């Protein structure tokens, strides 16, 4: 009996150590799990996520991931990586994330509202993708955000007024989307000109005292381009003798010119 009880307690102790070790491995890797959830939702034809091994203790050795001294993810840099698929709510768990760079891909779906949890985010670059749905008003919680670039997507709905409370915002680009409604001009948005909101057909740009001059300058630029385009079209028409092509393109140019002057 005396010989057996030390044996039992030692093995019990060893068992506890083993169990605790396994648990710590699981919890210590929650950021890796979040990133792995993203990997699962993305299609990656160029294998840029090949190094993303979820069995490692943390994701800090993964390519395109940068960590701080405490092995917590600070940067995710996957710009121009030919990725498609969708974003995941788990991205909101990366508490120390400062740079979220997912621009220039073919990502579809919505912007997860959980991104509003990323209190330390400095740069949110989702531009040049195929994102749809609204800009979540939770992004107004990103009180350290400096760069918000969502241009060239198919985002709809209105611009959340909560964004005007982000006093650190330096660069805002929401152009080339399908946003509608009024553009806020208060708070941090006093710093942003019409250029941050161009090419949103349903969006009412801020009224300025130089309204006519502004659209004149823009029209002047477009007119220069149009003259070039027109002469090329005429040349093409002569070369190809395709009357139908000329008509279709001419009407398209006319309708987009009217849109741009507004």
């Amino acid at each position, binding site marked *: 009996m005396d010989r057996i009880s030390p044996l039992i307690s030692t093995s019990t102790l060893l068992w506890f150590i083993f169990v605790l070790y396994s648990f710590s491995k699981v919890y210590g890797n929650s950021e890796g799990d979040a990133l792995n959830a993203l990997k699962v939702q993305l299609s990656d034809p160029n294998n840029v996520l090949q190094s993303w091994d979820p069995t490692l203790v943390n994701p800090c050795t993964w390519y395109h991931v940068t960590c701080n001294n405490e092995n917590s993810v600070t940067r995710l840099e996957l710009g121009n990586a030919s990725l498609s698929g969708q974003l995941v709510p788990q991205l909101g768990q990366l508490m120390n994330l400062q740079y979220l760079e997912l621009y220039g891909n073919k990502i579809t779906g919505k912007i997860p509202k959980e991104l509003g949890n990323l209190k330390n985010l400095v740069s949110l670059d989702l531009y040049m993708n195929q994102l749809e749905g609204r800009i979540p008003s939770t992004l107004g919680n990103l009180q350290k955000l400096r760069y918000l670039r969502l241009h060239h997507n198919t985002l709809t709905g209105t611009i959340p007024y909560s964004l005007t409370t982000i006093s650190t915002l330096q660069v805002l680009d929401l152009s080339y989307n399908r946003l509608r409604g009024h553009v806020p001009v208060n708070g941090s948005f*006093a710093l942003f000109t019409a250029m941050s909101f161009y090419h949103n057909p349903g969006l009412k740009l801020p009224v300025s005292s130089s309204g006519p001059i502004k659209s004149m300058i823009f029209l002047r630029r477009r007119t220069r381009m149009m003259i070039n385009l027109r002469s090329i079209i005429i040349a093409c028409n002569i070369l190809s003798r395709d009357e139908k092509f000329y008509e279709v393109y001419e009407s398209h140019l006319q309708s987009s010119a009217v849109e741009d002057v507004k």
Partner: protein
Amino acid sequence: MTTEWNHVTVISVCLYILISIACNNAVESDINCLKSVKASLRDPENLLSSWDFSNSTEGFICRFTGIECWHPDESKVLNIHLSDMGLIGGFPVGLKNCTSMTGLDLSNNRLNGPLPTNMTDIVHFLTTLDLSSNNLSGEIPVSISNISFLNVLKLDNNRFTGRIPYELGGLSRIKEFNVSNNLLSGPVPNFGPNIKADSYAGNLDLCGGPLQRCEGEPSKTSTVVK
């Protein structure tokens, strides 16, 4: 069949040319803007040596000293920050081609001469214009009042003369306005309570607004500003 194939080729080539012209229009203009700025200013301390136009990859001007782009992938200038670089010359009118620029800081240089009268055509979308601490002279152009998105306008420590255009008071987004230490006189614009007397210090005969009231005749002695 040969005619059909030629048909398709011609249309494809034409479409390609059309699309490249449409896409590159803004980018080329920004590159020309910076080339023109570098050409029109003397740079005795050679601080613009990083402005090398020979290797033109996508977004290359974004790596130039003092240049901030809208985003790193495209040569579209957002801000120019060339403060304290010993630059000599007149206000670079080539900036007209930086059509997306919202911030311009040329403070603490040796810029001279008058500002162009058509400022609104050259730098229309500025939210910040800082030309302070240079040798600029002449009158402050009225057209600045049409740069409607201006939040910050700093013209202090130059040699501007004449009146401050009253129309500048129409700039609805102004948060900071400073014309101190110039040679200005006459009534100041009506900016409201946010612009205080120290914005006007060190001039000749400014009056009105936060300063002493303008009387019928301009006083012959310098205005004492609190």
